[in-house]
């Protein structure tokens, strides 16, 4: 009998497995139950196919969406079109990642009492201004592209519009796949940057070449590197560093890129976040690309002027602009100001700082150079009231079409705004994008004045 009774411990293993499994489930419950309860189609928080999270407001208190009973969007069609990428549509073609992320908070779910107290409606307040977004969308005028503006001191994103857009109350019957209507370009697209990437090369140069700011360069309109020609639209002649950036001289920056080297250029690209995907407020941004593995000198030169296989995501470049404007590091951008359930604030955004993307001295120098760009090339008349610093780009994407890019910031502590404008098939960067940037920045400034 002693033998048998000892052997019964074998059977105890089964009870052990059962208890161990239950313990594992309890752990999973505490880790994931908020995701389960708000998963698409969850019976306690969804009704007629949509998440019943409550009401979404923009920064000015304008109601953008009420999720109850099949979703009620803003009354105004232009507001609906300007914000649909943030809110998602009824059919789920444009996912509402932000709402999903805050769903459990908004419905008042907590792990202790489940959905018991979830009767009250939630309120989500975004940092964007629907009015500014509508102006930006109008400025894009149906062209494919995106406009982003954010406050680099606080992190609030004021504008993140994606074009083309659609009216969720009147969705198109047929959608052209190539239009990318459902893509939120600000966060989920990546583009060949073109000359705005010269800012990165310039930063790398200032960090490696001590006399870069006093050097003289000569541009003859073309230069041969590794048997292949790199050209400028015209011969720029004698240039210094500042003028080379303002003229966006490919020949000069090709040689600077060679001198800086692949390793340093890659290091700076990684540091400023080009190759990263950022996660915030339920959004996962698309990572860019800076890959020089196996590249020859010619490829390195092209990469240094924002061509080759370079890709940047608009959001991440805007964040980089914020860091340059703010002297090296800036507030991390965000979209959701606060989430409220049943009158009590369950989430409130806090300003978090990026690491040092660029050292303070180089940032200051870059500010001066970018200000010079505006004064000498783009024209201050685009930005009458404030001191804007910028760089344009005209990225060759093959097939004869160009992506127009324009990135920069306002150097004014009252209006600490960094921005990016991207227009696909947009022709020349500055002429296409600078007026758009001017219009949107002016809208933001008016808004900020109004809020004071």
């Amino acid at each position, binding site marked *: *009998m002693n033998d048998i*009774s000892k052997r019964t411990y074998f*059977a105890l293993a*089964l009870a052990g*497995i*059962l*208890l161990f499994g239950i313990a594992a*489930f309890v752990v999973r419950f505490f880790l994931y139950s908020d995701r*389960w309860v708000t998963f698409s*189609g969850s019976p306690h928080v969804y009704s007629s196919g949509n998440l019943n999270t409550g009401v979404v407001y923009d920064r000015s208190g304008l109601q953008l969406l009420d999720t109850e009973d099949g979703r009620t969007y803003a009354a105004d069609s232009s507001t609906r079109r300007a914000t649909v990428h943030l809110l998602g549509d009824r059919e789920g073609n444009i996912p509402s990642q932000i709402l999903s992320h805050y769903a459990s908070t908004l419905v008042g779910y907590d792990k202790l009492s489940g959905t018991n107290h979830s009767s009250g409606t939630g309120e989500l307040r975004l940092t964007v201004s629907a009015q500014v977004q509508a102006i930006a969308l109008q400025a894009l005028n149906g062209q494919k592209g995106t406009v982003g503006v954010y406050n680099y001191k606080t992190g609030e994103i004021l504008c993140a519009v994606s074009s083309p857009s659609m009216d969720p109350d009147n969705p198109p019957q047929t959608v052209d796949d190539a239009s990318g209507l459902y893509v939120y370009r600000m966060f989920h697209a990546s583009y060949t940057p073109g000359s705005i990437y010269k800012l990165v090369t310039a930063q790398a140069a200032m960090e490696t070449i001590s006399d870069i700011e006093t050097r003289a360069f000569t541009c003859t309109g073309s230069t041969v590197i590794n048997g292949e020609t790199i050209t400028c639209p015209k011969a720029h002649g004698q240039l210094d560093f500042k003028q080379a950036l303002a003229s966006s001289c490919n020949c000069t920056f090709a040689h600077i890129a060679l001198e800086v080297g692949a390793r340093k250029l890659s290091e700076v690209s990684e540091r400023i976040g080009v190759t990263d995907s950022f996660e915030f407020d339920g959004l996962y941004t698309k990572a860019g690309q800076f890959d020089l593995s196996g590249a020859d000198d010619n490829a390195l030169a092209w990469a240094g002027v924002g061509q080759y296989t370079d890709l940047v995501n608009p959001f991440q470049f805007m964040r980089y602009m914020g860091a340059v404007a703010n002297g090296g590091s800036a507030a991390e951008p965000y979209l959701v100001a606060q989430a409220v359930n049943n009158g009590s604030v369950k989430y409130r955004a806090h300003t978090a700082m990026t690491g040092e993307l660029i050292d303070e001295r180089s940032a200051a120098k870059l500010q001066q150079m970018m200000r010079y760009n505006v004064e000498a090339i783009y024209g201050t008349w685009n930005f009458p009231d404030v001191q804007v610093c910028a760089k344009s780009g005209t990225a060759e994407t093959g097939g004869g079409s160009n992506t127009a890019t324009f990135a920069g910031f306002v150097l004014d502590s009252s209006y600490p705004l960094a921005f990016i404008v991207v227009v696909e098939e947009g022709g020349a960067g500055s002429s296409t994008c600078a007026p758009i940037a001017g219009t949107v920045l002016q809208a933001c400034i008016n808004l900020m004045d109004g809020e004071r």
Partner: protein
Amino acid sequence: MEAVLEFFTDATGSASFLSIYSSVLRVAMPVLALFIVLRCAKSLLGFRREPEIWAWMRLATGELIPVTHWENVLGRKKSADIVLDFATVSKSHAVLTRHDDGSWTIRDVGARGHVQVNGRQVIETKVNYGDTLSLGGLEMTLEPISNEEALLQNLGRTKAGKGNSPGMTLVLLTLFQGMALLALSFNMGQEHLMQFLMAFGELAALEWLLFIGQKIIRRSGFELETVAFFLMTIGLCVTGTSAPGELQKQMIAACMGVALFLTIGLCLRSLDTAKKVRYVAAVFGVLLLLVNLVFGKELYGAKNWIMIGGFSFQPSELVKICFIFAGASTMERIVTKRNLILFIIYAGFVCACLAVMRDFGTALIFFSCFLVIAYLRSGSYATIALMVAVVGFGAVLAIRFFPYITARFSNWGHIWEDPLGKGYQQTKALMCAAAGGLFGLGFGNGWLKYVAAANTDLVFALTCEEGGLILAVLMVAALAVLGMFVVRSAKVGRSSFYTISACAAMSIMTVQAILNVFGTVDFLPLTGVTFPFVSNGGSSMIASWGLLAFLKACDTRQNASFAVKLSSKQRKRGKEAAA
């Protein structure tokens, strides 16, 4: 009755009462459940294991060794029940067995030094008190336990239920049931009020009748039944919220189950009867399966149902009980007939029948139970490993070649990828389980009940949703307590027949719980296995009570179990037989 109805009608119409209910009772139910499970666990797992002494073995040296089981291995090895550490004695030399009538036999188990009784070499023979036994030349005599010693022992052993009154626990359980009844009645509206009142009334009557009946025959251990009734209460809530019309059927099944429980328990009182029933049960099990194979109807994907006069019935549930009878064995047989061939063939047949019916979940339960029995009888890890390997290989082939099983496995771990298709049941289960939080939404308030098989396959999630995570965990913990109790009481077991059958019964219940719960939460593929006592289903309820009888028969605490004869009476009979 009318007054009660009136009370409910008033109460359900009053919003303030409902809000008080939801805030207070929602928390009170899990707390009360915790007390109930803890009290049962304390009694079942905390009792002192005081051996029963049935006789004395006096060695030639004058040393007295207590004989504490009905089946005792005599030998040189340390794990022998009566250790005879002499070089001429074999490791396992002989088995000394006590019979129902109090008589003793000794059996040579193939030892080198042979066994002699009163100078005659024997293989198996009766032993009277005072007879001189000789094992490998070592002489000893079996002596009876005197009346005074027996009396002292009875007084000395702790009575079951002492310190943690089972009656009190049952009062708490009844209170818990009252709260459950209130919850269902308030949340489900007046339409089903009568059904709830009837079912919970019957449940209370059944448990108290059983308790009082056992009190009358001086049995005070009621923890095993309390655990079963606790699980049944959750079961009634689960059925009540999802299919109130089936409550009556469930209670009828419960009554039949309790009848089976009593029958098997009484039959297990006498080992001689049990050994005879063994063969009948084994044959009956085969017949049940054959009938099932021939007349089986396919319901819910498996052909394991038969229809009798409008009632659907799952014979494989009752086969579990037959299987245990077939697998249990006494020490004498275990030591002498070492091979398991017959039982392996039997188990193979049962599993093959279930595979033909495409009831792979149940087949897995039987296989696990078979492994437990095989190990208890053989003690050989190598054999078990070999069998697991062979069956595992077969399982891999089955998964590969049967599209029905492949489909289940392809979905395993990927439920969130197809939440509206193959992952529907489990994703909904998890969404709803999460919605319940720790204290639940209240029984009757859930949504999961609208999903197919919510009150059978998904009971864990349904309990999470409506009763809360705490209650759902307690439901599983209560079952685990039963398992641990069996292992704990094995040390003071009377016969290996009881120990093996109790272990087998508890492993069936535990594996069922494992497959049921882990299937729901996507730790394992969903197999459609019931949770004992909780899942809605008559056959399962009857079988669960049948299995509990085996646990009852291994409860040797003083005056604990109706399925165990009082040791004082046993000795009295022994005396009479000797005289």
